[in-house]
């Protein structure tokens, strides 16, 4: 029985790592209400609960994305511990310090939190950079780097006469994006 539970947890995490909808849904369903109760019991709203929970899901996703499916605790404990930290941080920003909670089932998630914070900042920077890039640069780069289309296809759908011209345009756009991104990055590291 115990072994089966372990096995299914690993299976869920593997599913999560490859964006398997069913696995994500299972983890979501089994953990959301607990987190919602935690947040709501500590002067948060349901929207806050959703935000915090989804952020914790991203932390878990990033963790399994690095290839480690060993959690050395239950998914529930991990998600709860992360949410707790995230929510405490938010409360501290509103200068409130303690939580009303009824579980001691916690794990140390310091590393994960640090890593997550860094990634979160990077995500925001990229989002900003992309946002201020403007069209058609944004769509062009998205088509190439995210939707993984080749230059031939891109030239066709964007209306360039040939792939070479599209490449030149892509290069210009990429340089602008890099500049936008790294300016923020350097400012932040200073």
């Amino acid at each position: 029985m115990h072994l089966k539970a372990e096995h299914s947890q690993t299976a869920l995490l593997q599913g999560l790592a490859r964006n398997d909808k069913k696995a994500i849904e299972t983890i979501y369903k089994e953990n959301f209400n607990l987190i919602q109760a935690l947040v709501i019991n500590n002067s948060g709203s349901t929207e806050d609960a959703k935000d915090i929970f989804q952020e914790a899901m991203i932390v878990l996703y990033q963790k399994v994305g690095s290839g480690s499916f060993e959690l050395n605790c239950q998914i529930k404990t991990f998600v709860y511990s992360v949410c707790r930290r995230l929510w405490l941080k938010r409360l501290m920003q509103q200068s409130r310090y303690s939580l009303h909670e009824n579980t001691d089932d916690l794990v140390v998630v310091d590393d994960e939190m640090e890593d997550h914070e860094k990634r979160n900042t990077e995500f925001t920077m990229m989002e900003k950079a992309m946002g201020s890039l403007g069209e058609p640069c944004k769509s062009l780069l998205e088509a190439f780097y995210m939707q993984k289309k080749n230059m031939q296809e891109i030239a066709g759908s964007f209306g360039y006469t040939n792939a070479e011209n599209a490449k030149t345009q892509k290069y210009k756009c990429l340089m602008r994006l890099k500049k936008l991104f790294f300016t923020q990055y350097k400012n932040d590291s200073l």
Partner: protein
Amino acid sequence: MIEDIKILEAVERYITGEMSPDERVYFESLRKSNPEIDQMVVEHTFFLQQIARFEDTRQFKSILNDTHSHLAEKGLIQSPRLKGAAKVFYLFNRYKRTVAIAASVAGIMALSISAMVWSFSPGKSAIKDDVQQLNREITSLKNQTREQGNQIKNIKTQIETTDLVPPDITYTTGGTGFLVDAKGYLVTNAHVIEGAKYVAVQNASGKDLRAKIVYTDVKRDIAILKIIDTGFKIPPAIPYAIRKSSADIAEPIFSLGYPRNDIVYGEGYLAAKTGYNGDTLAVQISINANRGNSGSPIINRKGEIIGVLNARQTSAEGAVFAVQSKYIHDALSHLQKSDSAYQNVKLPSSSSLRTTERTQQVKKISDYVYMVKVN
């Protein structure tokens, strides 16, 4: 520039592993000998990783949002947008401290007020007078109902002997009602038809039409009647609408009702968005009202019914209350949920009197307002 593009393309192909082995060896030696290209590779590797992570997280976020709505729709997680319980729970938790404080303050207030009333003017405070007056009204109503009860008993014995509807029913009490569906559905107050054995409605021409009660909601004081008389002719489409949203303070209003044997017009304005003692089901209006006005439609200048007149405060001059019109919509949907026979009842949703002059409005609406007679 063309050179730059070529170099970057090479860097990208190198990073993504698209180079042939020969090309790769050549590029690696170039990297070693040229620090600028080496730096370019490092930087671009990092940047491509950033883009990949960004896209990955973005996609994952969108999956999470889809999952959330999907699970909420199925009811597998608690979501306040779809279910009331969680919201109540949340609000309760959010305000429970405030509520607790408020409750104890209210308790202290009540204690001190009753102490004051007792010590200064035992039994004769202004509050008590108001309450008493209301009580008296209720007692008189009770007496009335008792009388009615007796009369009904008498009639019952009559009926039991004949087993037919007596041809001449003397209707003893009544109010006003108005059509909400031209097929013969009327809305009035629940208290108008309370304890009714027979209900009839009388239109402007003075003809009695028998009706039956199809729905009552005592709490909201709303009842729906259906005219079952064969003498009823379905009139043209109802000219007024039944408003779903609440009305605004100071909005001019008028009413049509049967406080006596003729239809009587009254004019006023919406005075407050709540009824007696802050009752949220009702609104306060300023209008002349008399017995028999219960069930009168309260209409705004656009020809929309905003409420159903139902009570008058005895202790305050001109304070009249009306049930909010949205409860007519509620009443009908309740009725339709409990009985499929009423699926085809449809409330008028648009007013054809928006720009019509008041006298014409009244003329048109009069045909749809009935005297409700009860025995």
